[in-house]
């Protein structure tokens, strides 16, 4: 125990004396919480729309007005010729073209409407795809209004839609809890690994190895400071989310910190395992970079796991961040309880156990 305190004293002194880590602790949560949410949004707005109106009727006017009024769309061009709009789309100025055919209103009144043609630019798959979907919804809404004006049969009265947990459909609220994992991966996985390999590179670990310090104590002394930093930074980030975005967890803080503890343990285990197998910082960095890339892309941070093909979904079962992100989003937005998220917590516990076991097994004090 005394040895642990002596080693902790050393680690803290080194961290504070480091030119970079204290600054990172301050700046990193700021970047992640203040810039990332504005950047990392899949909330597609400002879809550039061109309308080719060949009908010039009250119905087509109504549709154009609806498009103009929506935040989702920016009406770029209103023309009569499809070719003109297509040229703008090719130039990349327009994402979606809506072509309202001649005699559209009349045919609509007649009960067998002419088809409205939508052309989406697929280069930006997300914008084109979601843009087309939003336009379809807008058109359907307009139809419903037109019909109900005349007491028609296609009524908006058929449905009511209730959006629970995030009624304003704010994408940022979905993204922010997930972004916090970036902080924990970097601070509790990446940095201790670099630190450990740093001791190998400078040779100072050789002197420690010749002393009776146990490998468990030594590694623990390396991790504890980063765990504390991790939790400090997580708390700062949560505070920022509340102050800047008004986003506070609906569920319990206990559920969040429990998940964070388990996640941090598994990331540290991973970091130490990688460090044990590497002899230079460059190696650690590239291996960690590889893992972070997989984590970011596949754990549901950017794209929904449910949209992946089965084999990819199977791979995601082996990624600890997947479970942590699911917990964070559920607790933050829906107030889901620990009991309800039990499988996720158990998965994280299993990862923490396995990865730390691996770290302990790969550590070599003697060759």
């Amino acid at each position: 125990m005394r040895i642990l305190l002596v080693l902790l004293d050393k680690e803290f002194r080194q961290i504070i004396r480091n030119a970079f880590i204290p600054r990172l602790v301050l700046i990193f949560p700021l970047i992640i919480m203040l810039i990332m949410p504005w950047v990392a949004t899949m909330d597609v707005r400002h879809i550039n729309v061109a309308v080719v109106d060949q009908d010039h009727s009250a119905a087509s006017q109504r549709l154009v007005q609806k498009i103009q009024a929506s935040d989702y769309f920016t009406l770029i061009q209103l023309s009569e010729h499809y070719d003109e709009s297509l040229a703008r789309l090719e130039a990349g100025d327009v994402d979606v073209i809506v072509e309202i055919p001649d005699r559209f209103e009349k045919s609509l009144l007649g009960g067998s409407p002419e088809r409205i043609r939508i052309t989406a630019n697929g280069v930006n798959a997300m914008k084109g795809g979601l843009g087309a979907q939003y336009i379809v919804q807008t058109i359907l809404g307009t139809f419903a209004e037109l019909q109900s004006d005349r007491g028609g049969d296609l009524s908006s009265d058929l449905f009511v839609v209730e959006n629970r947990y995030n009624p304003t459909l704010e994408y940022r609220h979905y993204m922010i809890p997930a972004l916090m994992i970036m902080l924990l991966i970097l601070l509790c996985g990446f940095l201790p690994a670099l630190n450990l390999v740093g001791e190998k590179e400078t040779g100072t670990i050789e002197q420690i190895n010749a002393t009776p310090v146990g490998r468990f104590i030594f590694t623990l002394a390396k991790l504890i400071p980063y765990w504390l930093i991790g939790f400090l930074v997580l708390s700062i980030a949560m505070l920022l989310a509340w102050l800047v975005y008004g986003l506070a967890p609906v569920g319990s803080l206990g559920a969040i910190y429990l998940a964070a503890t388990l996640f941090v343990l598994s990331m540290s285990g991973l970091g130490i395992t990688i460090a044990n197998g590497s002899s230079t910082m460059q190696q650690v960095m590239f291996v960690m970079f590889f893992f972070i890339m997989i984590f970011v892309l596949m754990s549901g941070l950017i794209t929904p796991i449910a949209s992946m093909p089965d084999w990819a979904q199977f791979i995601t079962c082996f990624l600890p961040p997947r479970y942590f992100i699911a917990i964070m989003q559920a607790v933050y937005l829906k107030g889901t309880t620990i009991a309800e998220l039990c499988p996720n917590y158990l998965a994280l516990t299993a990862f923490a156990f396995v990865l730390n076991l691996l770290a302990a097994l790969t550590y070599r004090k003697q060759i």
Partner: protein
Amino acid sequence: MDDRVISVKDLCKDFGTFRAVDRITFDVHRGEIFGFLGANGAGKTTAMRMLCGLSYPTAGSGTVAGFDVMTQGEAIKRHIGYMSQRFSLYEDLTVWENIRLYAGIYGMTRRQILRRTAELLDRLHFRDEIHTRVGRLPLGWKQKLAFSVATIHCPEVVFLDEPTGGVDPVTRRQIWELIYEAAAGGTTIFVTTHYMDEAEYCSRVSIMVDGQIRALGSPGELKTKFAVQTMDEVFRMLAREAKRGE
């Protein structure tokens, strides 16, 4: 009473098919300064690392400070000091912080640490540098500090891997004075070196060639045996037989 601090029999170390240390056998007695000589690549550092519990022997047996090198590596570490070839104290910590770290690791109490540190600093004339970061010290000072840290806990035996590599003659002299003092205090010294004048200071020396010990005895005995005037000549005669290239 058995006064053997290190006792080794037929110790071997293989790296794959390469036999780095080939069946070495020797004893080191309490209070001795035991010189461990050999050309680069002869296997000195490998042998020393096995004795310190940093590396597992492939075969053979041995005890250090009464503990088995095969099975009790961690127990050995409590009773030895070690100074590696490469400077390995923390450069971003101060002289005092480094001393306190290692003293703390060996379980010394605060009072003991303070007393020992005061003693060491006085002897090294380091008083003014106590709060200097180690990275800013000149190499000679670093080596003296490393030696002091390796002996801070008054170990039974201290292993020094080329303690005077790259330092100026004056500092070299000072380090040897420290070694003598420690030996006089009852600490056994196990030291490797490339300087044959230093070999003359040792109570006994062994010379390794190609992983084997080819000569063992006091400098005087060896010179008589090989019928030469200096240790330098003894070393050259043996090193010439080496088959391993550098």
